[in-house]
């Protein structure tokens, strides 16, 4: 109790808490760095973490695009797919511009080269799509991006002569390490590093003037424009930027780092909806929150495949064991839907938001200002309702 009291007093100011928050964050990063060295962990656990990192990148970049910039896109998976497919096609077929007389043989393109080109093309498509989307808002934008990603998926599936169809497309392996354990170790650090780098870059963008402008546009595009924010430039910019991030993540992940081939099923609306659900549950407006949401949600979806309900002591089930085993099947997705709906309704900023807010000390500042405002509360005019 005494310890708790002392603890509470040290964290009772914003700076202390923030410091404490950095320590916790550091510990989490240290845990991830140490994790693959734990000899008791199997390669499978690392594989799960690797795909967790991948989805964390997807969810956090979607949070940047939708939560911070307010561009409600369902095309995120498609951009990921563009990165991966372009990288794969280029490494397989090379680049040929017959009319310009350019022909680069596939052998002369390294895996890294293919990934870079894939990333650039994803950014380029992001540029075009971002430009097309300038006139569209909210529901229209969501619908258009759904159409775009469905078209892309159908094309990848139908033009199987080029894309491999539902057999998927193998990318050139990024790493050539024979030993499975070492390879997994390296893949783990590679993907984790990519996640950290992406988070840092996105964090930097979100906290730069650009992030400020994006949030202003999210709140009210017309008002932001009237305040001199070049809404066209930043809207396109954020599409290009997030497309490149997910294009890169896709190209790397499918270059035999997390998976050895990309299949069109990965681009289905369901997969996209899972990303959105991760981000919503973790917190749409926080990059770290969305990343953690993806990581935790995936873990939970995995862990709740089978739910064991232990019976009180002395009771047994008909087969003599002390617990019921419930194969959750589709129920766990149904539950996931419920969590998503309730999160949206009652904890708009995600389940992790209170924790993040607490560490940031933001609520203390709020309390102060609220009390200040109350003190000179002699105005009878009421806050206006939503500006929407």
């Amino acid at each position, binding site marked *: 109790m005494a310890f708790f009291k002392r603890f509470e007093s040290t964290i009772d100011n914003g700076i202390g808490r923030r410091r404490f928050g950095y320590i916790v964050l550091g510990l989490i990063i240290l845990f991830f760095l140490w994790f693959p060295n734990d000899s008791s962990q199997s390669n499978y656990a690392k594989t799960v973490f690797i795909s967790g990192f991948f989805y964390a990148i997807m969810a956090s970049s979607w949070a940047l695009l939708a939560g911070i910039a307010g561009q409600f896109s369902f095309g995120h998976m498609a951009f990921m797919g563009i990165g991966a497919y372009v990288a794969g096609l280029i490494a397989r077929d090379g680049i040929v511009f017959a009319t310009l007389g350019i022909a680069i043989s596939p052998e002369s393109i390294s895996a890294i080269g293919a990934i870079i080109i894939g990333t650039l093309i994803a950014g380029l498509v992001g540029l075009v799509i971002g430009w097309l989307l300038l006139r569209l808002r909210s529901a229209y934008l969501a619908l258009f991006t759904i159409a775009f990603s469905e078209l892309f998926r159908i094309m990848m599936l139908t033009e199987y002569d080029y894309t491999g169809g539902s057999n998927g497309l193998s990318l050139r392996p990024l790493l050539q390490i024979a030993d499975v354990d070492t390879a997994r170790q390296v893949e783990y650090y590679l993907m984790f590093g990519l996640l950290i780098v992406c988070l840092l870059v996105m964090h930097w963008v979100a906290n730069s003037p650009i992030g400020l402008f994006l949030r202003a546009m999210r*709140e*009210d595009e017309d008002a932001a424009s009237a305040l001199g924010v070049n809404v*066209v430039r930043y809207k396109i910019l954020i599409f290009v930027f997030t497309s490149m991030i997910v294009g890169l993540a896709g190209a790397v992940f499918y270059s035999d780092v997390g998976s050895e081939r990309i299949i069109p099923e990965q681009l289905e609306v369901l997969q996209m909806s899972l990303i959105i659900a991760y981000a919503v549950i973790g917190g749409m407006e926080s990059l770290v929150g969305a990343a953690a949401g993806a990581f935790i949600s995936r873990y939970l979806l995995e862990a709740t495949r089978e739910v064991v309900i232990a019976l009180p002591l002395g009771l047994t089930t008909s087969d003599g064991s002390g617990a019921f085993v419930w194969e959750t099947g589709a129920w766990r997705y149904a539950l996931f839907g419920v969590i998503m709906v309730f999160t949206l309704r009652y904890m708009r900023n995600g389940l992790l938001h209170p924790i993040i807010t607490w560490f940031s000390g933001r609520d203390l500042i709020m309390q102060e200002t609220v009390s200040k405002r109350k003190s000179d509360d002699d105005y009878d005019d009421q806050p*206006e309702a939503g500006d929407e």
Partner: protein
Amino acid sequence: MSNINLAVNRVSKRFGGNQAVDHVSFSVTKPELIGMIGPNGAGKTTLTNVMSGMIKPTSGAIYLNGKRIDGHPAYDVTRAGLGRTFQITRALGRMTVLENMMVPGLAHRPGANRSALEERAREILALLTIEHLTNEYSRALSGGQRKLLELGRLLMLEPSIIILDEPFAGVHPRLQETIYQYIHRVHEDGKAIILISHDMGAVFELSQRLLVLHHGALIADGAPQDVKSDPAVIEAYLGHDEED
């Protein structure tokens, strides 16, 4: 700001069958305090929207300091030196008051030193008597405080012409006083102000020149006393149920 040159040339805007703005022409060439009045639906807000680049005119042209601005996006217009507020305030709700101030600050001067800008923002907030709300989310502000915040944001832009759309509507009298002071101060800084308001008293008290819109057309443009006695204006106001 010494050079002010706004020219509105036969600007029209149609919505479907409704002629919202009908060949309006006027110009502003010196730091004047201009009132714009007209009955409800006279096209005041539409004209403001057209001038500030929020909507494109159907025809006509607008020049600001020699540069064609009609049809240009709002941010271009803003950067060319024309700032505006909104009739229904548009505070950026889930951003703090300081962040609200920083948006135009950084947009206007991309390379500026952030802390210097913040300093300036705090000064302006102090001037507007809302410095105690600096770290508050602007959605939590009262209507009047939001009006003040909008005015503050304009100062960060340093525009040469300011359009104030109903700055007094629904504002507590004490804050109205602050807004009065603000208008005088800005005007003394050498900026032109176009003031749109239903509050005839305020408009007549403040303005040096009046523009009267009726059914989208500009029916009078002159000194308040002259306009008051203009038969067309009287007709416009008396011939219809005047609101407010």
